[in-house]
């Protein structure tokens, strides 16, 4: 997805309306009515719910203002664990997906591999990143679950029944492996345009100035790519943090993740404190906002350089 929020050239738009017969000021006032559907939509479905989450986070069960809900999060070990697990999975899949994704994207865009492989990888990444959710979870159950292909293969090769000897995948490590399936393609898709922007002439200029490959990468290549790689990794982090369906389908509600907790809270007040649920949701929004903001800021820098 092209979240490269490039600066849009609205300079032509500043000149105002198409030639209309009516006087300027009269027309201007009512234009916003055209936006009414969107305004209502945005308010009712996005802004108000988000605001309500924020407000209710500070609401005590009796109805007054309190910051206890926030404090409560830090007191309950199960919730702290949930945050810890979510953070671990998000960081792990962001880093592994980031590095591996970068390598694949680089291999595919650099020209070392044939052009058809590039098209195939990009298309496949589009598909794989859409495959997330229940089907993906099951695919991995069929692969690394107790009767999964890999599981049976390892048992067969090692002669040991690994399942009986502690083969556990329904934890954050197994789930990380599953998440990689949509993290990796996301990295490839987001990073490929940035890699394309790495002009061949820069390498050639560095060569004619006497530089070796190492000089080029250290002084030019990596500095230029860093914002894009960093930004994409941050996006991956946020992506994993907000995932629900895949986790739920893979390990049920036994796996302690923030999204799972919120999901459970929706279905019944398992926390025995509605304000707490809101506080959790608020925490999620904050983390995702930071992630998105970091991503957009870094991608803007990257775009500026690889224009």
């Amino acid at each position: 997805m092209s979240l490269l929020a490039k600066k849009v050239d609205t300079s032509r738009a500043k000149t105002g309306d198409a030639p209309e017969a009516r006087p300027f000021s009269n027309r201007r006032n009512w234009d916003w009515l055209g936006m009414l559907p969107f305004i209502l939509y945005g308010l009712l479905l996005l802004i108000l719910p988000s605001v309500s989450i924020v407000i209710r986070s500070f609401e005590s069960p009796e109805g007054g203002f309190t910051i206890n809900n926030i404090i409560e999060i830090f007191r309950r070990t199960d919730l702290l664990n949930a945050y810890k697990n979510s953070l671990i999975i998000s960081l792990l899949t962001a880093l592994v997906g980031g590095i591996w994704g970068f390598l694949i994207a680089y291999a595919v865009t650099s020209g070392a591999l044939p052009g058809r492989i590039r098209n195939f990888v990009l298309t496949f990444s589009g598909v794989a990143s859409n495959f997330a959710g229940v089907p993906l979870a099951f695919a991995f159950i069929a692969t690394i679950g107790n009767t999964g292909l890999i599981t049976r293969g390892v048992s067969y090769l090692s002669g040991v029944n690994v399942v009986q000897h502690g083969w556990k995948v329904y934890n954050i490590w197994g789930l990380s492996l599953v998440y990689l399936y949509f993290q990796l393609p996301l990295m490839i898709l987001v990073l490929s345009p940035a890699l394309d922007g790495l002009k061949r002439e820069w390498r050639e200029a560095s060569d004619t100035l006497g530089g070796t490959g190492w000089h080029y990468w250290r002084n030019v290549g990596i500095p230029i790519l860093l914002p894009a790689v960093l930004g994409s990794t941050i996006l991956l982090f946020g992506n994993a943090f907000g995932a629900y369906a895949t986790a739920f389908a893979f390990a049920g509600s036994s796996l302690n993740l923030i999204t799972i907790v919120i999901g459970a809270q929706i279905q019944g007040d398992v926390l025995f404190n509605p304000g707490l649920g809101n506080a959790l949701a608020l925490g999620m929004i904050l983390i995702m906002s930071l992630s998105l903001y970091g991503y957009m800021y870094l991608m803007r820098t990257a775009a500026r350089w690889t224009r």
Partner: protein
Amino acid sequence: MKKNKASVFFMWFVFISGMIYFFLPLYATFDFSLRMLKDRLSLEAYKEVFKDPNFYTNFGYSMVWSVVTILICMLLFTWTAYWMHLKMPHWRPYIEFVSLLPFVVPAVVLIFGLIRMYSRVSVGSFNLLGTPILLIATYVVMAMPYMFRSVDAGLRAIDVRTLTEAGQCLGASRSQILFQIIFPNLRVSLLNGLFLTFAIVIGEYTVASLLGWPSFGVYIRYAVAMKAYEPAALSLISFLMTWVIMMIVQYVGRGSPGQTQIATH
């Protein structure tokens, strides 16, 4: 790029390792789906799936959700994007901000907030939660980033103002301009957005399950919990379906740059 043997080898290694990672689960699923009958490979699991009336009901529901979502998205976002381009370009930052909110508020949290707000809304005997309105509304929200941006990019590419001015000079009315000039040029963007929205809604699980509505995603989850071999068949069917959709998206958007979008769950 300097291509020496070592780096080329490394690139192939990286690529192949990625391919192995991606194809192993697919193969495992496929293999699993063929083993319904104890002693031989067969397509029995697939037959079971296609025999199950629930499959059709749930898929049907998802189709309905998709179609309605797509219609609403197309109308709402095309109109908004067009109006913004034409009349209110200075609103762009705000509108773009809103269009990015779904990334900041993941499905779980969104549903959380929406249910809180609207669960007690009822007019007479009409209870909001008893209707799929909230479901569709959430899908519209989830599809917004892709649909809106697709149309926005398309509008930018065709320079709406100039076309509108040209139309006005030639004597066309506003609706004539919209339907005879603007929309046909947006065909690619609309199709692109359409298929991406379809892909999102058809496989969606989180929202449907938390709101308690039938959907294809919910059905697959049910199969995972209750059945052994059918979920494998369903996973593969789901994957193939996604593949077809992406092929269509690629084909439709083949002239336009940068239109290969993706949908996160």
